[in-house]
């Protein structure tokens, strides 16, 4: 490789790099601006990623809570089912209603039997 480079460049004089100070200033300013833009972009991307992750976590939490809610609703329905309530009522000493009498306060109007 070095032979090839030598073959290409032999007889070519190395030039002297002369740098104009104004150009150097402008170039430096450009580099600084580009660096700032790149840094800003990086900050934005990383912040977006962090927020995206946070949203994903919130979605997962919402999903988990929804499922938790459904499970609790079904468990509650099972615990308060008619058969369960019946068992509990019997355990607590309640008995089925029989011979219900509707009580009518004395000061109210006449009954059907009264003309």
């Amino acid at each position: 490789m070095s032979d090839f480079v030598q073959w290409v460049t032999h007889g070519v004089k190395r030039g002297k790099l002369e740098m104009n100070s104004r150009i150097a200033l402008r170039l430096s300013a450009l580099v600084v601006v580009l660096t700032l833009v790149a840094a800003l972009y990086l900050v934005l991307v990383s912040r977006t990623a962090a927020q995206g992750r946070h949203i994903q976590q919130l979605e997962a939490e919402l999903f988990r809570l929804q499922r938790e809610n459904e499970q609790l609703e079904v468990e509650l329905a099972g615990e308060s089912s008619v058969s369960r309530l019946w068992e509990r009522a019997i355990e607590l000493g309640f008995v089925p209603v029989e011979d219900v009498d509707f009580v009518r306060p004395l000061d109210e109007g006449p009954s059907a039997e009264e003309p």
Partner: protein
Amino acid sequence: MADGPRRRLRLMSTLLAGLVLVIVAQLAQVQIVDHRFYKEWAREQRERTVAMARPPRGVIRDRNGYVLAGNAVMYSIEADTAYVVDPEGVAAALGPLLHVPAAHIERLLDSESLWVQIKPLVSKDLGEQVADLRLQGITVRPLWAREYPEGPLASHVIGFCNAEGVGFYGVEEFHDALLQPAQVEWRGPVDPASEQVPWVVAPVVLPQAGAGLVLTLDRTVQALVEEELARSVQEYQAVGGTIIVMDPRTFEILALASWPEYDPGRYNDFYGLDHLPFEDPAVSQQYEPGSVVKILTVAAALDAGLVTPATTYHDQGWIEVGGVVVENASRQAYGDQTVTDILVHSLNVGTAWLSTQMGAGTFYRYLQAFGLGRPTGVDLAGEVAGQLLLPQDYERWHDSNLGTNSFGQGMAVTPMQMISAVATVANDGARLRPHVVGQRVAADGTASSCQPVVESQVISAQTARTLMDMMVRVVDEGVPQAKVEGYRVAGKTGTAQIPIPGGYDKEGTIASFIGFGPVPNPRLIVLVKLDRPKKSPWASETAARSFQRLTTRLFVVLGVPPDGTRVAEALR
């Protein structure tokens, strides 16, 4: 500088410039000319369509909001075998938890398949325990399983849902499309494990349940009805039965029970049996209704202006219709009888006389208007039309049908048709469509009520009121077993023979009673049907007694005070 080096330098510069041009041209080709192709290719490589966990099915509730069919949280334990680095360790960890032999799990993990299911359905607690292990390559996929927290309660109305989420029988089948959730898919950039990458904020796509249903059933009424049906079947030694309770003002079904019942959560237990209990006899099985149809025959004759309740005829114990002799069930002659007496004594001869007086055209027009011979349109799966032969059907209809049909033989109805027809009388002659769904609730919680649908005004309100009073006399004088203390109730028995090939079964009957009350503003109508009661073949001794016991309790539960109390309230 000598010419040689210059020439070489120029040559190399030209070559390099050419090379750069080729690269630039290639870049232009990729970035500009083929821009769309490569963009799409890159997107395809980066993005995946990920099917989210199957959302839950819509919840079914009773009219007071109690859950009748909900969704239990479950998980499926699966493995991406390519990501499992330690099959032996994973199998050892999962085996005791899932009660699956570790060797079996290890064999699954070592298989050629890229994806294996280790256990298809595990409980919430177990699924969360497996997830907490954080085993590499093991996926704990969230699922829902249909749960019926009330057990067998209202099983024939609800139906059941299989493991694939498809509804069968009852409301589950009839409203399957509504209850089914929409499958949610998310498309976006993912990582190699098909997980959403965090730097792209995708729109929130959470699984949404299917639409929910609020039924017109009242679970307390349903429980009482089922208790009474079980008691009646046992006490009267019947092989089956059906009870329907309906609000005649709206045709809302408050309770519907058939025996034998089943637990929809354990539908798998019945597979392999000859007779599956899933079909609802209330809408799917037809029977000859017998004397209950006399209500409709008398209604038609009254509404057509042919007779009044006081019109008399001479009952000689038999009448010939189309060459066939029709007799009373008691085989007795009753002499001069009024139209009201036809109902009170349930006289076959009387109704055959009425139908022949009306003629086939008028008689069948009314029976059809009452809804016989066609489905009621109730929102339950598997409803059949029954059978009502019409004179136009020359091959099958016979002149004698006019006589036998007048007292409910030679035709077939479903219990739902029969209660709807009689509820028409209790609703001032207007026939509505019976229904079990009161509200539909969208996934976002928006509820829409199902309004009653008026099918037709079958008889005038005046005729209906007159008939109601006649039916009260039927209970008071003809079937005192059905009387409910403190309330005016109307009703009619039906003791029907069961058709078999070549005639009628001499062994059994179908005993039924339809009653409503309190008259004149009925709050509920009840149909009790018992199949082949052995203790007594007569409806007055079986179904009427069941009606009395049940209705006495229902009036209390539904807060219907006795007649005297209501009159007192009205006078205040």
